[in-house]
């Protein structure tokens, strides 16, 4: 027995709608997210000014090609917000389902839990997109970064490829959430691994270890390309190479993520811990 793609798509849509409705049932969260983009930018501004004594730095230009430290860091923070939200969202949402007692009903239904995960990921992306849009407006208004269509289109392509790869990662992570039940510690650890080994807050070429390890992380390739396009106005810079590398990483991460999730979901059903939290 197989289900049609239409039915799976409608299940994804239903999950998306449900997730967003539950978010909006907590009005205080809307207030928080409304001021979040402003709060988010301040520490970077102050940290940047304290470190380089202004908005630009010559030594920074030698490392990255752009002296605009603040724009460098803010772009890193913006893109990382996007990808980490998938990790947080997907990991947390499965944990929430077990808290709500609804996880067993999802598993017992004919819909594969991966379909639900896709719905949750899409809802997270939709929400993160709104946040990132606000952040982009702030960067454009206060830090002199120009977002033209010629820049935005290739950046969007890279971001989509990056998100696809990260969703593979998030799917595997969701499987671990089913098994280990706790997510916060793991997501924080992963976040800091990414902060350390990818150029979110600093150029990884400052030391050879991070420079080498960072090449294994899709976020590195994406950030290098996005900054080149936005800050250095190099629209042609390594775009094809970056897209190819991200595509290969996406396939590896999605396939690995899928098989890990299927294995771990089956293991929790064998261990009898599906509904536990």
């Amino acid at each position, binding site marked *: 027995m197989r*289900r049609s793609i239409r039915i799976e798509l409608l299940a994804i849509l*239903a999950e998306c709608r449900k997730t967003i409705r539950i978010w909006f049932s907590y009005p205080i969260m809307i207030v928080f997210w409304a001021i979040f983009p402003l709060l988010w930018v301040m520490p970077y501004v102050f940290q940047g000014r304290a470190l380089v004594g202004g908005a630009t730095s010559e030594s920074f230009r030698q490392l990255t090609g752009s002296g605009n430290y603040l724009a460098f860091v803010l772009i890193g923070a913006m893109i990382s917000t996007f990808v980490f939200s998938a990790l947080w969202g997907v990991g947390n949402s499965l944990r929430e389902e077990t808290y709500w007692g609804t996880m*067993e009903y999802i598993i017992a239904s*004919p819909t594969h839990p991966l379909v639900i995960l896709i719905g949750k990921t899409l809802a997270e992306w939709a929400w993160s997109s709104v946040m990132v849009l606000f952040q982009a407006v702030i960067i454009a208004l206060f830090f002199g970064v120009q977002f033209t269509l010629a820049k935005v289109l290739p950046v969007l392509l890279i971001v989509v490829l990056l998100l696809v790869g990260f969703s593979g990662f998030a799917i595997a992570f969701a499987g671990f959430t089913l098994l280990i039940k706790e997510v916060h510690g793991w997501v924080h650890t992963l976040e800091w691994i990414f902060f350390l080994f990818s150029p979110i807050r600093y150029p990884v070429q400052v030391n050879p270890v991070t420079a080498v390890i960072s090449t294994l992380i899709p976020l590195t390739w994406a950030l290098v390309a996005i900054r080149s396009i936005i800050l250095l106005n190099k629209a042609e810079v390594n775009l094809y190479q970056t897209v190819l590398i991200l595509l290969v990483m996406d396939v590896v991460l999605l396939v690995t993520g899928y098989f890990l999730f299927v294995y771990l979901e089956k293991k929790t*059903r*064998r261990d009898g811990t599906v509904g536990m939290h």
Partner: protein
Amino acid sequence: MSGDSTVPALECRDVVKQFRRGRGFKKKVIRAVDGATLTLYPGELFGLLGPNGAGKTTLVRCIATLLIPDAGTIRVLGHDVFKDALFCRQQIGLLTSGERTLYWKLSARDNLKFFAALYGLTGKERDKRIEYLLGLLGLQEVANERLERYSSGMKQKVSLARAMLHDPKLLLLDEPTLGLDPQFGRFIRGFIKEELNKKQGKTILLTTHYMDEADELCARIAFINQGRIVDIKSPEEYKRDIPHKEILKVRCLGQFDGELLKGVSGIERVSAEFNDGVTTLNIVAERAEMVLSEVIEAVRARTRILGVDVQEPTLEDVFIYMTGTSLGADTKEEHETQYQD
């Protein structure tokens, strides 16, 4: 195949489910279900009766594909639940005990819409089905209110509606009246028997540890204790087959056990329940009147008698007779074995 009325609606054969608990030397294997075999025929309302921890819920979870058994086979309408999980899940409607099984931040209607999508119901067909179920369960007026404002009984009604959303052939109802007030409990029992079973012809596996519920609703009942199916019969057959015909119940002040009646001849078995300062002695005898005077004398010598009653054996009495365990007992830890790797 599923349309064939001779095919059992549910067949469990030698189902075993073990859980490993603890670590290192303290590691134990709990045999929650121990070779359970049962068959439900189409349209049957079948009860699984046993005390807490007997393995009822574990067996239901295995049937609902939430747990993978260690041994045995489970077939729904002739299809193996693990080889053909998609088909079987579409045929099963599940209701578990506890009120936290729905999205409290959503309305009843939104909850049902979401779960309908998981079962492939969409558009007008979905809306029609939801309206029908809301009407059937008397929820139409509150359908747009968030579930957090509902009482436990109303939430259980929504759970029941969810179990029926996709019009399943087999309903697994795990302790459907647990924790409900008597009014809602009565409604749910009536709904299961009259609407779901008699009118709609659903095959129902009902687990409960309330003997009255099983007695009132079920055509056949399986007694389950320590993971094993002890016997399967109709409530009448159980009562008929018990070799004792009468139960003498004596309520007396203070806490006592069967030792109180040591020396009274003609008694086959005594069990004692203590509650709120009162002990109820359940005395099984071939004929109550033959032991009555001696029992009263023995009890009165030690305490004050509050009441005496002679009853026909209930399913609870039969269960105690067959297993030596009360339905109110918690047998969770009783069937553990030390784990040896």
